[in-house]
């Protein structure tokens, strides 16, 4: 598995975990009362920050893990850790494009919600979901491309 693929996995796992924790914290409050009373702002900012920080931490851990794996197994090279070639670039582009399409579709829905004057809670969370969905779609397309070929 290339280092870029490992990073994509780390990013995917991080995003899924953070999204699940956020959904668990906020989702439990939706049934309890009106959404206008839910203080979603701080958890959402923390969640977005956590994705960034944990993705960086994941990249560092992946690099260390790869280096240790090379030392133990003797296979591969530590030079591969930060090596990125044209295939990685092409796969990244394809994934990012897929993520862009997903985000664009979500934006139409969010635009409609705004026009219909939905509560800020729903609009903010729809944007949050759009970001997560775009990121996960991008990662999924990249991982499929790494495995099936490109």
């Amino acid at each position: 598995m290339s280092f870029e693929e490992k990073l994509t996995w780390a990013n995917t796992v991080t995003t899924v975990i953070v999204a699940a924790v956020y959904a668990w914290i906020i989702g439990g409050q939706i049934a309890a009362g009106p959404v206008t009373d839910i203080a979603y702002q701080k958890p959402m900012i923390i969640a977005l920050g956590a994705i960034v920080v944990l993705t960086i931490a994941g990249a560092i851990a992946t690099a260390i893990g790869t280096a240790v794996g090379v030392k133990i197994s003797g296979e591969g090279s530590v030079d591969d850790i930060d090596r990125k070639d044209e295939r990685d670039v092409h796969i990244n582009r394809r994934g990012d494009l897929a993520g862009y399409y997903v985000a664009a579709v979500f934006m139409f829905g969010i635009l409609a919600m705004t026009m219909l004057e939905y509560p800020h809670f729903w609009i903010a969370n729809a944007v949050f979901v759009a970001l997560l969905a775009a990121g996960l779609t991008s990662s999924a397309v990249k991982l499929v491309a790494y495995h099936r070929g490109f």
Partner: protein
Amino acid sequence: MAKPTRVMNSIRSLRFAASEMTQAKLADRVGMTRQTIIAIEQGRYSPSLEVAFKIARVFGVSLNDVFQYPEGQS
């Protein structure tokens, strides 16, 4: 599962003919990752023309000796 490219190659046999050059060594010589060399060998990735020329140059052969495209395919 259909391969994403019809381009075939002889990299594997050329590597063995070149003192059993490893995929890692070839990757280093052309500035690619080992995983990309594996993907090219297995027909899961078609490299750019520039990389194709680099690979041919490593083995000291022409591009046609490394990469082939089936006859009758448009």
